[in-house]
Every structure is written in C-alpha cells, then in structure tokens.
C-alpha cells in the first residue's frame, strides 16, 4: 500500500498494512533545511522543496502546503509583520466595526496576497508525489477567519452585542474559505485541512459552535466534497470533547484531537469517524525519542482493535522540534 491508499483505507475503517502516520510538519520543514521560516511561508517553491526534503528524511504519509493561519486575512487586507525565522503576526486587522462590510469582495486566490504561492506549492507537491502521498492544503475555519479579520476580542464581543452582524461577517469568511479551498483542490491538493483554533471550546461555548460555526463548516466541507476532496479533515485544538459529537453533521471524515482529550474519550464521542492525534506538541521540543515512542505505542495499543486512527501530534510539530523525535513518531507506526 502507498501512503494515500493506506490513509484512504483507514478513513473507511478498512484494513491497512499499518497505521498511517502524519507528522504535522509545517515550519519544521524549513528549520530542517536551514531555511528561515519567514522565507518558507512566502515562497511556494521553497515551501514545496522543504516539504519534499522532510518527506524524504522522515518517510511519513502526508505533506502539507501550510504557511500559517494568516494567509486568508492578509488576502482580504490585513497587514502582517514578518519577523526573521518566525511565523507572521497580524499588525493591523483588515476590518473594524466602523467599516461598511457590504463592500467586501472575496479575494481571487490566483492573485491575492500569498494565496498564489500556496497554490504553486500544491501544484509542485502533487506533480512530484502524484497519488502516492497525501497532499494537504489548508484553509482556516469561518470563525477563525472572522477573528483574524476583526481581532479576537472585537469578534467575541460582537458575538454577544450584535449577533446578526457577526453572522454576516462569518458568511463572508465562509465564501473566502470555499473559494480558496476550491482553488487548492484545482491546484493539486487531495484535500484542504480546515484549521479552526478560534472555534475551540477553550474560546467559545459549544452552543456557539453548534449555532454559528457548524452550519458554515457544513457548507465548506460540502463544497470541498463536491469538488473532489478525498476526505474532509477538521483540526481544532484544546478541550474539544464536547463538540466532537457535532463533527459528523458537519461532514468531517478525519477529526484531529489534541492532548486535552484522551483517545478513549475521542473514540467514545466519534465511534465511526477516523481520528488523528494526539501527542503534545511541546514533547517534540522538550522530550526525547523514548518519550515520543512511549506515547505513540500507547496510542497504537489503544486503537489496535478499532482501526480508524492516524498516528499524529495533537497540533503542529513546532519548527524548533528535535528531528530525532519526529523520526521516533514515524518509526513507532512502522514497528507498532
């Protein structure tokens, strides 16, 4: 089985030759190649080459064209600050409460901000890897983009002070995400993962998730499915236990879970959905290969009789992670 076949079988809870392993390697691929992270997130060719190098070194089952979580907001008009060897941060949000949001237009992924660079990276990765390895693009979730357009605090207060206005902006965010995701699929992504940190129950109550975010996630995933995505992958970190039961209604095929949620709880909440997780990100920086191996073996044992599991970290493997720790994760899946 190649990586893509292994993942496709696992998503359907069918037999695979081994448990797939997906290390969430983004900026770490740049660190590995000695490329500054701020260059990596701005140049599609560099990103693709670093991802291919990391794949050769580690031999896991997926590559990512993931820059950071500010690609969409920059394309709409936010100003980012790029610092040496770091992910960019938002310096000025695209929108304020005083703006007329009716005048907003959805950015063209072929032209806006760094979107074309990400599409180029996807085209290179797919050309090089074909259907052997999963090629993953990335969009942020509707509420996450809303908080990235307006600022987290302003968006959260708006949710209470003027819910219809917030929903109006979330609808715009949904359009931006769908258009960008479809362009990624056309460029070669097998699927765009949906990163949604602001939709975590650490930030918003589950009721808010159900009423505001869930219907829009459903729209996003439906559009991706219709455009040929091989699966729908939702990534929300933090204590997601209480929102996991809503994932099937959103059309989620792969559910990421972080270290906050135990493997047992995640499986109880989602008995028929493929899970990926959940080793602590910081363990790849501070821990040893033995630590990672022990965590990985524990997860593999827990899921042995169930299937539907992809061995992974709970969130991003930080850029400064120790390479031997990433290797230990991959090795665990091979021998486990």
């Amino acid at each position, binding site marked *: 089985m190649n990586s893509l076949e292994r993942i496709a079988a696992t998503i359907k809870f069918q037999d695979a030759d081994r448990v797939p392993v997906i290390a969430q390697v983004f900026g770490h691929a740049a660190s590995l190649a000695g490329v500054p992270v701020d260059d990596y997130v701005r140049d599609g060719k560099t990103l693709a080459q670093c991802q291919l190098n990391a794949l050769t070194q580690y031999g896991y089952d997926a590559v990512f064209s993931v820059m950071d979580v500010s690609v969409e907001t920059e394309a709409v008009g936010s100003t980012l600050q790029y610092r040496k060897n770091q992910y960019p941060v938002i310096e000025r949000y695209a929108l304020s409460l005083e703006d007329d949001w009716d005048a907003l237009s959805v950015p063209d992924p072929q032209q806006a901000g760094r979107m074309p660079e990400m599409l180029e990276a996807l085209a290179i990765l797919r050309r090089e890897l074909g259907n052997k390895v999963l090629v993953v693009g990335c969009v942020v979730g509707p509420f996450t983009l809303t908080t990235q357009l307006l600022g987290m605090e302003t968006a959260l207060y708006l*949710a209470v002070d003027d819910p219809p206005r917030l929903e109006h902006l979330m609808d715009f965010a949904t359009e931006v995400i769908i258009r960008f995701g479809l362009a990624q699929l056309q460029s070669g992504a097998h699927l765009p993962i949906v990163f949604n940190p602001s939709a975590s129950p650490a930030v918003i109550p589950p009721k808010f998730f159900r009423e505001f975010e869930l219907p829009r996630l459903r729209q996003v995933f439906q559009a991706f499915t219709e455009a040929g995505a091989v699966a729908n992958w939702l990534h929300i970190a933090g204590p997601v236990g209480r929102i996991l039961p809503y994932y099937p209604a959103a059309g989620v095929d792969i559910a990421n879970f972080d270290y906050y949620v135990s493997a047992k709880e995640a499986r109880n909440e989602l008995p028929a959905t493929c899970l990926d997780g959940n080793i602590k990100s910081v363990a790849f920086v501070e821990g040893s290969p033995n630590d990672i191996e022990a965590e990985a073996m524990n997860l593999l044992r827990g899921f042995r009789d169930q299937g539907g599991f992809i061995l992974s970290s709970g969130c991003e493997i930080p850029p400064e992670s120790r390479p031997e720790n990433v290797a230990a994760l991959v090795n665990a899946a091979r021998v486990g």
Partner: protein
Amino acid sequence: MSDSRMNNLVEAILEGDCAESVSQVEHLYQSGVSSEHIVIRGIETAMTALDAKCTLEQFNLLEIMLAGRAVTEVMKVLYPAGTAPMSTKGTVVIATLEGDVHDLGKNILKMVLIGKGYHVVDCGKDCSLQKLMDVTEKERPLAIGVSGLITPIIPLVRQVKEQLLLRKLDSIKVVAGGAALKQSSSDHLNVDFVAESAFDILHYLDGRTGEK
C-alpha cells in the same frame, strides 16, 4: 460574608451585562455603599463564582471576557481616571514576552486579578526581558506572570528567574501560562508555577498572600 445587596451586581457581571452592572454600581453608590465594599463583596464575589464555574471542561474565553468587560466598566465608575483603586492584595507584573504578540491570555489574567483585588502592572506584549526586569525592579511585585502561545519564547521564559537573581529580586515568584507554556513543566521553564488557566494563577497568588 455575603451581602444580599450585591446579588444583582454579581448576577449582572456573571451575565456579562455591562450596562446593568454599571447601573447596579451607581445604585449601590447612591445608597451609600463604599467603593471598597462593592469591590470586595460584589466584584470579588462575582469572580469567585466565575472561578467555580470555569472548570477545565467548562472554561471558555468568551464568558470570562464578557464578565471582565463588565468589571472593567464598573471599575471606571468606582475609580474615575486619576483616582487609583486601593490595592488590597499586592502587585503583580504581567507580560507577554518578546517574540509573542498573542496577549489575550495575559489580558484575561489581568481582568481576573483586578477583579479579585490585585494591583496589576501590564508590560504589554512583545515585551523585552530588560523592560520586564526594569518594571519589576520599580514595582517590587509579589509575582511576575508571563504568558506564551508559541513555543519559541520558552528559552526567554527560562531566563526570567536568572535575571531576577542578578538583580537580587529572586524572592519574587514567577508564574507562567498560555497554550505553549502550559504544556511544559515548572522545572523545564525554570519558573515557580505553571498554570492551566488564569484562575490557577489566582489560586497560587491567593495561597501566597494567605487569601482563601
């Protein structure tokens, strides 16, 4: 000791209702209740109730931010610009360290500590170690609170206690929180306490000051 005159204020704060919170405070004020009493029996009671409600499973920023916003508005009424609130429990210096601009967690901590009667000196985000130490030397706080959403600031966090020692300020406690830092340990970060939430830091400080 509870004070039933504060019930409406406590409820309004917990619901995050700014206008009602301010209206309740004005009403209490006009009835002759002192600012200090409103803080201790009203605001602190509300924060204690919020603390009890915010377990790991139930915690969300939205609820705390709304209550925090109501508290901030109430404090503006109680202590108009220029009239500094009395500090009943001591000073805490807080910062999001250089390289990290994600300061929401720090802002939440500020709201919680102010709401529970601490004096908070906020060094802001992307704060250099030099600035943090200069402010600490001037303020001589009970503790320093540092927050971090991203892992690259960990090496800087590890230097805080070393810098305090160099300035002979090593009796000051260092507490850490935030998505990246809370995955680590106090030993690895070289701090006195790693908190899961803002309320964890409050409990730690209350433990140091003898508050319950």
